[in-house]
């Protein structure tokens, strides 16, 4: 659920709810249409094929009946008898042949002798030649089966491509067989009807073929392979599947391949007379063009709808998320501490309500925020006023207090110089106490003055290297370090550190800390001071370790108080302002100072200072 925007989700939901069902329905309808189109095309082809088969059968049957009627004519008997009137009989038969559009009428005796031929009288009485072999086969079959026979279809002759067929019927008189009568038909008109491809489109073809042994002899031209009728002959097993099926007595329709390997919609039939296979076919491309068009239209509509739905989802998503985006932007400005503008949203009622609620909320927040600001400002002003007053007071006090003190000191010195010889030892001692007191008072006032100046007279913060400041501090302490026999070591990290600060005060800070460590050294153990540094994000954490006397935990806070001392002046001299100054300097630099210590083992002062932005650890 995480990570997807509203628009993405809307898009997915839109597509799922509208496009997926539509795609399914479209596919279903297209499939249905294709199936229906296939079925209707196949049924049309089947009807055409059956009609053609009927036409061929009816044509041949009519002529068979003509032959069966013709044999009843007395002229036929006369011709077989070769008796008187044969010439007249021949004339009337020839007339019949001419009117019936027959190429020839042939009478053959039982023994196979031709007794009459309407158009080829020269063949009479001659032994039938090779050209008449179909006729003789028909004659023999008609006698053997005592029924009308239709011979195989052949071209008239080598020079005449027109197709011809013999209808041969036995001639009987009073239960005696005289011979046969054969009508030679010109199949031109039948072939024109049979190969008429009306209703089959531009690619429609009607293929007719017969088996001759193991070969297929085509009875029509095959334009796709430039095959000529009755010349084009191929092996049966290389013929196209529908023609093979038809020649094997099969009947069917389907999508298959034609003689040229084209995918076609075809219907195939076996025609027992004249033993032909017939394939009525048209190219699948053409037959199913409508389906392809529809598929294309369906696809385009789907793409269009996909675009439209995506756009709609996107627009809809935008209109929902626009107010959300505006709210987000305004929330960011609030987060950045700026005062938000009032937002206006139009369109969605829910979005308007949300904006209104948001405006009310930000207004209330603005009011309370302003109140808070005002108070903080007021307090800060009060605080700085009192701070300034205090500092002014400290300065004035220390400055003005020194004046009478100087007077006390100078008159004490005058007193000693002028009346010193008149004073006894006790008098000198008292005088000494008074001078010490005045001097200590002066020190206190000077320290106080310095303390008050940390904030008032500090230099501006600059980027500065820490090393020189620490070195300066150590140098300033040179004598006391030497006297104490202390060893001060400084980490490399310290010398390399660059901070933001006031170098005078930083020197002061380290001078005080190292000086403190030397001052509160253990009388027995050797005094060692170490200054270290560690980078903590954008801060430097600095530490000053010593081997001194240590501090008890309950005084960890107190040592940073002004004029707070843990020891008598006799044990360790000093005014007790050093660590207070340190704390004040660190705080002015925005840092923190604290102690870890164990009595008798040493103390560690930690403090943090802002690292300069220019350097970062590891950046050489």
């Amino acid at each position: 659920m995480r990570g997807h925007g509203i628009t993405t989700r809307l898009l997915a939901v839109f597509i799922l709810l509208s496009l997926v069902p539509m795609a399914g329905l479209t596919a279903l309808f297209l499939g249905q249409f294709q199936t229906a189109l296939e079925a209707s095309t196949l049924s049309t082809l089947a009807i055409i094929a059956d009609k053609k088969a009927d036409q061929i059968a009816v044509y041949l049957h009519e002529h068979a009946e003509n032959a069966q009627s013709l044999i009843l004519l007395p002229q036929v008997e006369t011709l077989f008898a070769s008796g008187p009137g044969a010439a007249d009989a021949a004339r009337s038969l020839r007339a019949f042949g001419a009117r019936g559009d027959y190429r020839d009428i042939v009478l053959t005796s039982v023994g196979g002798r031709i007794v009459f031929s309407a158009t080829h009288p020269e063949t009479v009485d001659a032994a039938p030649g090779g050209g008449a072999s179909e006729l003789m086969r028909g004659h023999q079959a008609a006698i053997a089966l005592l029924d009308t026979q239709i011979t195989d279809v052949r071209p008239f002759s080598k020079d005449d491509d027109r197709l011809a067929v013999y209808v041969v019927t036995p001639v009987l008189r009073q239960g005696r067989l005289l011979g046969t009568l054969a009508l030679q038909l010109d199949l031109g008109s039948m072939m024109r009807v049979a190969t008429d491809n009306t209703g089959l489109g531009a690619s429609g073809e009607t293929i007719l073929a017969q088996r001759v042994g193991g070969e297929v002899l085509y009875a029509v031209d095959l334009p796709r392979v430039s095959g000529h009728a009755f010349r084009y002959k191929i092996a049966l097993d290389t013929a196209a599947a529908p023609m093979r099926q038809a020649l094997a007595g099969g009947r069917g329709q389907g999508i298959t391949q034609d003689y040229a390997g084209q995918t076609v919609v075809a219907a195939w039939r076996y025609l027992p007379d004249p033993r032909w296979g017939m394939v009525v076919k048209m190219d699948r491309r053409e037959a199913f063009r409508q389906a392809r068009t529809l598929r294309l239209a369906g696809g385009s509509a789907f793409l269009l709808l996909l675009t439209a739905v995506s756009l709609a989802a996107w627009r809809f998503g935008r209109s929902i998320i626009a107010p959300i985006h505006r709210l987000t932007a305004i929330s960011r400005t609030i987060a950045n501490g700026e005062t938000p503008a009032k937002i206006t949203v139009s369109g969605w009622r829910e979005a308007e309500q949300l904006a209104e609620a948001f405006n009310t909320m930000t207004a209330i927040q603005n009011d309370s925020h302003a109140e808070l600001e005002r108070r903080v400002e007021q307090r800060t002003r009060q605080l700085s006023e009192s701070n300034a007053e205090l500092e002014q007071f400290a300065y004035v006090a220390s400055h003005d207090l020194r004046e009478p003190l100087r007077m006390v000191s100078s008159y004490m010195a005058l007193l000693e110089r002028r009346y010193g010889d008149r004073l006894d030892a006790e008098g000198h001692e008292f005088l000494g106490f008074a001078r010490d007191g005045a001097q200590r008072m002066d020190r206190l006032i000077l320290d106080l003055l310095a303390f008050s100046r940390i904030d008032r007279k500090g230099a501006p913060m600059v980027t500065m290297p820490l090393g020189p400041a620490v070195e300066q501090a150590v140098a300033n302490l040179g004598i006391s370090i030497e006297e104490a026999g202390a060893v001060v070591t400084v980490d490399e990290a310290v010398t390399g550190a660059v901070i933001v600060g006031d170098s005078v005060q930083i020197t002061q800070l380290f001078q005080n800390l190292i000086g403190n460590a030397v001052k509160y050294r253990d009388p027995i153990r050797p005094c060692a001071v170490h200054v270290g540094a560690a980078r903590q994000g954008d801060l430097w954490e600095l530490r000053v370790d010593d081997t001194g006397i240590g501090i008890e935990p309950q005084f960890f806070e107190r040592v940073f108080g002004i004029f707070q001392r843990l020891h008598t002046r006799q044990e360790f001299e000093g005014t007790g302002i050093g660590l207070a100054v340190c704390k004040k300097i660190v705080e002015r630099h925005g840092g923190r100072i604290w102690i870890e210590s164990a009595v008798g083992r040493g103390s560690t002062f930690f403090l943090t200072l802002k690292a300069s932005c220019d350097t970062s650890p590891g950046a050489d």
Partner: protein
Amino acid sequence: MRKQVALSLIGGFAVLLFSGALLGALRQSAPPIRIGVVYSLTGTMADSERPLLDAVRLGVEEINADGGLLGRRVEMVVADGQSDWPVFAAEAARLIKDQHVSAVFACWTSACRKAVKPVVEGLHHLMFYAVQYEGLEESDAIVHTGAAPNQQIIPGTRWTLDHFGRRIYLVGSDYIFPRTANRIIHDVAAIADGRILGERYVPLGSDDVGAVIDDIRRLHPDVVLNTINGDSNRPFFEGLRKAGLGDVPVMSFSVAENEMRSFGGAALTRHYATWTYFQSLDNPENKRFVAAFQARFGAQAVTSDPVEAIYVAVRLWAQAVREAGSDDPGRVNRTILRQSMNAPSGIVTIDPATRHLWKMVRIGKVRPDGQFQQVAATDDPVRPAPFPFYRDREDWNAITAALTSGTAP
């Protein structure tokens, strides 16, 4: 979102499953297509007719193995005709009226067919008859897949006369088929200059063939044309052999492989038959058919012309049902007229004018094992002519009327 996708998918699957279940239920609820099969399972014809029931069964089982017809199973409703023609007629009526069968496959003898014919015609139903017969009949309710006379009697007689001589002797059972067949043989003999030396009829089922044997011994015909039906053939064949006439050429028109084996037809040395089919035919369709038949009914099972013809009838009927898209007899009766197929006997085509099949005509010589060795055949299937064309229809009807009124069925 994934939840939405999952929900949509689950919804889609549910719809699919539901429609699938619905379709399945519809398909399952589609009742089987029933066909009525009436043959004699008892009585004198039982031995001849039972193999026809087997052939129908094989055809039906093959159709069902291929997924049935129009998504429905085909179921046989079998009735016993008891070799009794009125029983056949009553059973056919019962199957059509009470069992609502879509087609009837019935009868061996012509007498039976003539008894059932008015029933199927009256009910405008569809019957398949698969035995070669005498012809001279046409019915809008019957499809003949057996040979018409011009596909058996005429060419068979013609061939016999041409091969063995013109002096012939006729013997047959005493009922309509042999008498009509012999009437046609008379015609053919006249046409071909044949001489009929004698003609004798034996009652159906009778063993009394003594007179016939005597005739043949006395007359010395060139060839005997035999139209005896049923088990009277056994004493006839035996009689010939015992009389030392085992070498006389015989052309049998009603003895197929099955009977040839059981009646001892192979004992005659010059025994021939005319059929459109022999079990011994060497073509892929027949090899498959014989193998399937023997796989189903045992290695000893024998196919024959009528067995093949009734099997072909079932297949053609199935094709017609598919094409009609219905098993309604009225609709199938139209589409059946356009069917053809590559049958074990060769290419068969229904001739719509006569409702008979275009068939090959074959002459076979009986081998010692009772099977036939084909010795002659037509080049192509022969158009069926139930009314041979050389007489007109009135002539034939007069002949039929005379024969039926004059003799017992």
